[in-house]
């Protein structure tokens, strides 16, 4: 039995906790995987805001594409990007936005 007076120090594994939280400003990385990817080119390099952490942590889908039925488990986030940020000369309303799921390995804090 754990006594009420003892403190438990635990260390969490890397990736066990999401690196980002709702409201964080992020930039979607720019790199060019060939063969398969799930981050459309139109969103790369753009800046947005984390709307939501998607629970639970899940396998990196880009790794699943080559049939190992395995891959690094991590966090996906719903990231909101204003359409004015995506498309120069966007002529809809200035508050229109795109929301897209991005895996943590593609996000940089800004």
């Amino acid at each position, binding site marked *: 039995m754990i006594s009420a007076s003892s403190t438990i120090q635990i260390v969490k594994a890397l990736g066990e906790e999401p690196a980002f939280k709702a409201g964080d400003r992020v930039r979607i990385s720019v790199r060019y995987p060939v063969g398969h990817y*799930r981050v459309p080119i139109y969103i790369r390099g753009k800046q947005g805001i984390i709307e939501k952490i*998607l629970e639970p942590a*899940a396998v990196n889908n880009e790794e699943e594409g080559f049939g190992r039925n395995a891959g690094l488990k991590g966090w996906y986030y*719903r990231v909101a990007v204003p359409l004015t940020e995506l498309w120069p000369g966007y002529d*809809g*309303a200035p508050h229109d*936005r*795109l929301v*897209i*799921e991005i895996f943590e390995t593609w996000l940089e804090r800004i």
Partner: protein
Amino acid sequence: MTTHDHDHDHPKIIDEPMPGYYEIMETAVRELLVEKKLISPGEIRRQIEVLDSRTTALGAKVVARAWVDPEFRARLLANGRAACEEFGISFYDDTQLIVLENTDKVHNLIVCTLCSCYPRPVLGLPPDWYKAKPYRARAVKEPRKVLAEFGTEIPDDVEIRVSDSTATVRYLVLPQRPAGTKDFTEEQLAALVTRDAMIGVVKVNLEQGIAV
């Protein structure tokens, strides 16, 4: 030349056109996988039944319930999949569901620019236009023009939010309940909700009639 007599059996004359190349490929792949005992014919038949059982009517029921039951609505918005499972709608593809609420201030629409991700467990299979280039290319770039092509005008003071699916979350738009439906039964409400309203390209209105 002999006369054609009938004391032998004809193989049945099948009144169907010859299958095309890709149909032959599908048949051949399936038969080989069954021969190798990697899949069984029963599994394919069963999965066809699963697919046939998923139609827009399921989504419409969920929307109608959310319109009449505020607590269900809250559960639906908190966890779309769990709320649909209350109706017995199973998520055979192990996707999650986020339900996007349309309000006087926000109008949502859904797209999959990379392929054709769609909330199949609760809506069935997507229409061809959803999977084709024009919708997928333009919904993320000029959503208001896309909506206009569907006859939908969203005022400038309403925010448009386009959700592009790329992973294992699927989306369902919860349209606004139209005015003039205060005395409608849940069934009558469900009959108003179309597939296109749950994709977000149209609103629900009284002229729409039976769900697609």
